[in-house]
């Protein structure tokens, strides 16, 4: 793969120097219309729920009404007897999963828990935990059948909060769970699945050098990715044992692996057809419905079965990311050097281990070069749905804590918050808390971009009197992963590119553009398709901000290989050596011989071997991303409501392949971060029932809640990619909560340490401050 240096001139130049002059590109950096665009503005694009067959059955899932209970028995006989019902399945229909840890997508999980999360085995662990499923001739009949299934529960007291879970006498959710205590297995039942520590230098000595220490505790609530398309899956189990699954997922190969493991079926018998996907943000990696659809299809007499979640099911039983409690302590010298940082991060895992506390701990201090650091992380199970990845998993929680404390330090030291960041900001070679040195990064460049921005330099009227400005930064490590793809030369001079990274936000365009640039042809000549798992080799999920980087590498390589193949074919036809063939400006020539690209394609088809090339890559030289953001707010001190007046983001994209989609990622990430910061949260009652499982009461931002979001794309090329791509999807959600908290402090002098900073919480803090001030002598 990509080993031929002759084919790789641009990569050869990538010596790690970000200041090298930018090459002039023909395709990269332009804003063409995406290949799937027309279908998406006409309603013709087919998403997972749009799958139709004449003999299609509709499935529904019965979910636990209790947050924690033992299942004594399940009686499905009445449901099975209802006319129109074709199959009923329960956890008993699943094979016993292996007690083995596997990474089948983004982050690992014990297969036993993965299976238990698909259909409960003897116990339910959250409100909405699937217990049984029905396939029937209509969705309404399937729903009626659910009400005929008798489940005998022994209801147990739920464990809803971190405090309850970590209490000495806490009820134990998973009897078999033992703490992974820095690699050692604990010896008693617990709800603490893991404890780890990162340590650099000597924290005690570090704090001893500090002239100023700030310590605060922060809390964040469970939040959901909030993709607009609910989970769905359609499966057909054929009479010959071949299985086809149509679903919208971030990773078709991940779905294949998970279904294979859960149902103990070889991957070769499963074909996953990725439909258009209506948003994922990390939440469409784990399987929920796919194995159930397969079971139902087989049991219903080999008919296709479609399951589609309601919005309530989506909120109750998929997604969410962890609520958390973070204690953050930081010390700085009088001249503005951060000398020590200590933190404890405690994250909700939901019902099964696996919160993103590990990546949260890395994000926490990554923007800074701090000599003495100690971070303790805890992964704690509670009776909530199992946490899954959400855009820069764990990062927003962490940065809310660290960037709030950084802001407070800067204020107390009388330093501009951006100058303070520039003074302490991480550069290439500086070590992160996990001990790894930063590769070439563009953090300081994002801070400078904000410092030089029109926004940061514009006066804010009413500042400090209800209006305020805040800044914050964020880090995300990004990812490379594995991709494979093929490209076919067509006789009319176009190329069909087959890849398998499901396209959530325009990656077909960004991949096709890199291919076009690499082959030196216009974007319009590339027909790109996302194909199913039988068409190309393994691909990692669309996640970790990896697709434009990783599958982009494959596209680059395809372009180089196709160029070489065409040169080879033309050399054969012309009877010259390949070295004599020159390719420039879409013209191949060798001496007297001269053909355009289109003529070459036709000539090759007529007179030579067909051209199809393949690329398989494992992108390991991915480049981290940084974002620095600036926000102006107005706080209504009579109601506690925050209005965002202006928002500017500076983000290091490495190289923006399609700038409009880079801007879109920046804006979208901030919008999600704003929702998380101001209004989104899971509200449970004391019995563990989710109270706000609707888009009315799970309050994601509407168009009226946001201003235009200004974007400054910073380009410090990643030397590990021929065009310098880093990956842009995730980091933009990391800073908003802290930026808003800092802006609110700037506006009204109230330091918010709990998310969401909704009107109820903010009003309470404002009234408390007013009460305190009125009792103090003037």
């Amino acid at each position, binding site marked *: 793969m990509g080993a031929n240096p002759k084919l790789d001139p641009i990569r050869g130049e990538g010596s790690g120097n970000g200041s090298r002059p930018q090459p002039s590109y023909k395709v990269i950096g332009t*804003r063409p*219309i*995406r290949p*799937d*665009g*027309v279908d*998406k*503005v*006409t*309603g*013709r*694009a*087919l*998403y997972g*729920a*749009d799958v*139709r067959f004449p003999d299609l059955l509709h499935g529904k899932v019965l979910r636990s009404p209790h947050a924690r209970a033992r299942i004594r028995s399940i009686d499905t006989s009445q449901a099975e007897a209802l006319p129109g019902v074709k199959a009923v399945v329960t956890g008993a229909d699943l094979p016993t999963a292996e007690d083995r840890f596997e990474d089948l997508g983004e982050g690992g999980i014990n297969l036993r828990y993965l299976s238990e999360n698909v259909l409960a085995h003897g116990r339910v662990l959250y409100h909405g935990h699937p217990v049984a499923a029905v396939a029937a001739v209509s*969705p*309404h009949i399937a729903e009626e059948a659910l009400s005929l299934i008798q489940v005998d529960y022994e209801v147990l007291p739920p464990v809803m909060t971190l405090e309850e879970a970590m209490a000495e006498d806490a009820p134990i959710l998973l009897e078999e769970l033992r703490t992974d205590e820095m690699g050692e297995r604990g010896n008693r039942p617990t709800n603490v699945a893991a404890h780890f520590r990162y340590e650099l230098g000597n924290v005690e000595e570090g704090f001893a050098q500090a002239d100023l220490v700030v310590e605060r505790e922060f809390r964040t609530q469970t939040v959901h*990715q*909030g*993709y*607009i*398309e*609910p989970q769905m899956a359609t499966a057909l189990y054929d009479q010959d044992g071949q299985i086809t699954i149509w679903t919208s997922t971030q990773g078709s190969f991940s779905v294949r692996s998970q279904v294979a493991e859960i149902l103990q079926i070889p991957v070769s018998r499963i074909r996953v057809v990725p439909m*258009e*996907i*209506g*948003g*994922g*943000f990390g939440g469409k990696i784990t399987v929920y419905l796919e194995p159930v659809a397969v079971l139902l299809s087989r049991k219903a007499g080999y008919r296709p079965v479609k399951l*589609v979640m*309601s*919005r309530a099911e989506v909120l109750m039983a998929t997604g969410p990311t962890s609520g958390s409690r973070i204690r953050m302590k930081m010390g700085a010298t009088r001249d503005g050097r951060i000398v020590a940082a200590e933190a404890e991060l405690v994250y909700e895992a939901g019902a099964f281990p696996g919160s993103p506390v590990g990546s949260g701990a890395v994000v926490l201090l990554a923007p800074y070069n701090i000599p003495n650091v100690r971070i303790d992380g805890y992964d704690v199970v509670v009776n909530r749905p199992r946490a899954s990845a959400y855009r820069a998993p764990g990062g927003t929680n962490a940065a809310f804590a660290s960037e709030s404390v950084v802001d407070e330090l800067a204020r107390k030291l009388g330093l501009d918050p951006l100058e303070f960041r520039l003074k302490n900001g991480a550069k290439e070679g500086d070590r992160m808390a996990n001990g790894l040195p930063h590769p070439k990064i563009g953090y300081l460049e994002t801070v400078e971009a904000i410092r030089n921005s029109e926004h940061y330099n514009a006066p804010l009227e009413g500042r400090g009197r209800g209006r305020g400005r805040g800044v914050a930064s964020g880090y995300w490590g990004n990812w490379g992963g594995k991709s494979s793809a093929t490209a076919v030369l067509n006789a009319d001079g176009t190329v069909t590119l087959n890849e398998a990274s499901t396209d*959530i*936000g*325009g990656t077909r365009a960004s991949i096709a553009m890199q291919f076009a640039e690499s082959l030196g042809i216009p974007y319009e000549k590339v027909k790109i398709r996302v194909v199913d798992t039988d068409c190309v080799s393994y691909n990692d999920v669309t996640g970790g901000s990896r697709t434009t980087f990783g599958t982009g590498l494959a596209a680059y390589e395809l372009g180089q290989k196709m160029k070489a193949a065409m040169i080879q074919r033309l050399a054969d036809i012309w009877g010259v050596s390949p070295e004599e063939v020159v390719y420039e400006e879409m013209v191949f020539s060798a001496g007297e011989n001269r053909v355009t690209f289109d003529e070459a394609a036709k000539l090759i088809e007529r007179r030579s071997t067909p051209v199809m090339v393949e690329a398989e890559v494992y992108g390991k030289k991915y480049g981290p991303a940084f974002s620095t953001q600036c926000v102006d707010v107005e706080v209504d001190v009579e109601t506690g409501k925050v209005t965002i007046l202006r928002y500017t983001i500076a983000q290091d994209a490495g190289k923006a392949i*399609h700038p*409009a*989609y880079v*801007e*879109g*990622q920046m*804006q*979208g*990430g*901030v*919008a*999600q971060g704003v929702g998380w910061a101001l209004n989104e949260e899971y509200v449970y009652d004391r019995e563990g029932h989710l109270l706000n499982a*609707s*888009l*009315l009461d799970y309050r*994601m*931002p*509407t*168009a*009226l809640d*946001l201003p*235009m*979001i200004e974007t400054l794309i910073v380009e410090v090329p990643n030397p590990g990619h021929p065009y310098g791509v880093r990956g842009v999807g995730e980091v933009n959600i990391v800073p908003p909560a802290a930026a808003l908290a800092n802006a609110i402090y700037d506006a009204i002098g109230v330091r918010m340490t709990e998310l969401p900073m909704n009107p109820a919480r903010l009003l309470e803090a404002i009234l408390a401050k007013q009460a305190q001030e009125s009792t103090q002598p003037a």
Partner: protein
Amino acid sequence: MPERKKRMITTTINGEEITFLCEPRQTLLEVLRDELGLTGSKEGCGNGNCGACNVLLDGVLVNACLVLAPEVEGRELVTIEGIAPGGELTLLQQKFLEHAALQCGICTPGFIVAAKALLDENPSPTEHDVRLWLAGNLCRCTGYDKIVRAVLDTAAALQAAQTTPTEVA
């Protein structure tokens, strides 16, 4: 117990008279998607909070998930599939593409139907007008910036196209 007997409904969808069978409990959205194959209208929430199923019912913007199928007897419906009468993309659809006003695209049909209804009623909306009108349509990918720009740009282009000939004359 009410009968599950289906009834026959005749209505006009995207200019064509159509007769379909439905149960009274089926929503318009279910019939459009499951019975008629018009899957461009999406279900994001099923209770009127996301706008992904927006259609025009006698010219009025409504959520198809909150209309019962038998209610549309004798009415006129326009769905995303019928938003471009001649088949060519409307300017609004083109502007969505040019402005990259979609990422995953699942909310896009609802936004386009809603934005069309806005521009039909108010050809020169302000940014606030657009944001207020589109507040019933949730998008989780874009942060709305590019959607709002696409709608404003469409309005400006339509206004310019209307005023130019007069000015020339």
